[in-house]
């Protein structure tokens, strides 16, 4: 009960931080805006009817952006902002535990990432059946969790918001750009299957083209193992330094 109250208090702090920080808010706004604009461009080019291939590439674009901007980048910014303003230590010396802080911090970014991914379906005008939706939802939830944990790891190592965005760069490069350009550059197609964002994009692409998509054993393994690895890395980093090194 106490833990839930404290977690909720942290989440409330983060909610206000998201709502009042334009740098954080641009993430979700840009993702949604970009997908909307792209949709109208595609629609214009093809007299109102979007081809399934175009629809698929719209979803891939949205999902890669969303996972990285609203999961990884947002969480790491939120944590490093508290370090910069010297409020993280204050929370920890006001009886908030590491676990409560973690849960409270990722709650809204996680919900936002899942929500935006779901929003892409109506925005792009993609129609999915029940089974397709179930796969889409499941991969979205696991993917969003993975990116929030990666964001936390970066938050642990970043001293301020500046260094957080620096540290985010290579992560975004891998998890955002590789799935995005996989369709264009041949070498990347082989790599993208090993990334959770790649698996998500692949699944979304298939679903968008009206094909029944079943997550294979390999894809499931990629999704789950990357979540587990992220959590382990987080625990390792947290054990070593806490959120803030002394």
């Amino acid at each position, binding site marked *: 009960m106490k833990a839930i109250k404290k977690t909720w208090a942290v989440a*409330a702090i983060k909610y206000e931080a998201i709502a009042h920080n334009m740098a954080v808010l641009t993430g979700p706004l840009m993702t949604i805006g970009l997908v909307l604009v792209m949709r109208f461009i595609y629609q214009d080019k093809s007299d109102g009817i979007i081809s399934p291939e175009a629809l698929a590439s719209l979803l891939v674009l949205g999902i890669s952006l969303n996972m990285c901007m609203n999961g990884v980048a947002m969480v790491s910014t939120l944590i490093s902002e508290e370090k910069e*303003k010297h409020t993280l230590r*204050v929370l920890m010396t*006001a*009886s*908030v535990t590491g676990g409560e802080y973690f849960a409270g911090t990722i709650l809204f970014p996680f919900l936002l990432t899942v929500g935006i991914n779901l929003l892409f379906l109506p925005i792009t005008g993609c129609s999915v059946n029940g089974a397709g939706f179930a796969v889409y939802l499941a991969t979205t939830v696991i993917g969003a969790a993975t990116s929030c944990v990666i964001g936390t790891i970066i938050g642990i190592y970043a001293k301020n918001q500046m260094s957080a965005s620096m540290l985010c760069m290579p992560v975004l490069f891998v998890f955002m750009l590789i799935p995005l350009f996989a369709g264009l550059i041949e070498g990347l197609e082989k790599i993208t299957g090993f990334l959770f964002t790649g698996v998500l994009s692949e699944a979304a692409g298939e679903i968008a083209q009206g094909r029944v998509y079943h997550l294979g054993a390999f894809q499931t393994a990629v999704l789950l193992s990357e979540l587990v690895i992220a959590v382990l890395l987080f625990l390792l980093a947290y054990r070593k330094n806490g959120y803030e090194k*002394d």
Partner: protein
Amino acid sequence: MSQKIVLELNAVSKRYKTELALKDISLTLCEGEILGFLGPSGAGKTTAIKIITGQLRQTSGEARILGTDSENLDASIYERIGVVSDQSGVYEKMTVQRNLEIFASILEVPKSRVTEVLQKTGLYEHRKKPAGKLSKGQGQRLVLARAVLHKPRILFLDEPTSGLDPATAVQIHEMLLELKKEGMAIFLTTHNMEEAACLCDRVALLCRGQIAELDSPEALCIKYNTKKQYRVRLEDKTEVTLTETPEDIRKLSELLKENKVVTLHSCEPTLEQVFLQATGYRLNAEQGISQGNNQKHAGGTRRKGVVR
């Protein structure tokens, strides 16, 4: 002392890689007592607070806070102590009141207490302002208000008045004395001698990680009053300083008998001078530890017009 001991350090030492930051620190703190940790920059004050409040591990020795060994502390200890570090921040975009409400919900304190604390710290009229817009002194009061929301048994303050103007510092002192009256134990660090002298029941003089002296400011000043001297102001507006030589004592009693004395002061050294004598180092906020000029400060008294 008959009061309850809330904090106990026993030969605590801390080594950062190569540097010994704290060496064999032993002390106790009782309910309703203000203990000052006094030392120049780099003496180890912040390190001591971090160890006691469980934010840092000591290298050796034992610290017990409210009966719990500091190595076994978990987050719940913070429901019973308040900590203000030397750079505690506030949520700048939230209002003053919201800042306190957030911590009230974390510490399970009723909302009415927020209003109470706002009034006590004189922040009530500023409660709707974003915390980032407060002046430095107001901000420090907000940090303090947050730390005492849950009426902690012990309050830890790392340089609570550094960088504040004297008037604001006095406001903070008054708040602390009021909290002390309510039975709160206060552990504060400072490099301001006057602050320590007027606020603390006892002070620990810390130099290079070691406690050189630990006693009440008055007792320390008396202890280091090795050359007793009296400053006498006479009717004809001259000032003389008399020592304890038989000759001077005779002179003093004559002056008194003849009713020529306007004022008479004993010249104990100030805490600043005591620190210099006890550690050989001068307290200096800006420059940190600096070797004191013993020649100039020896005895610690003004030698003006010594009567022969």
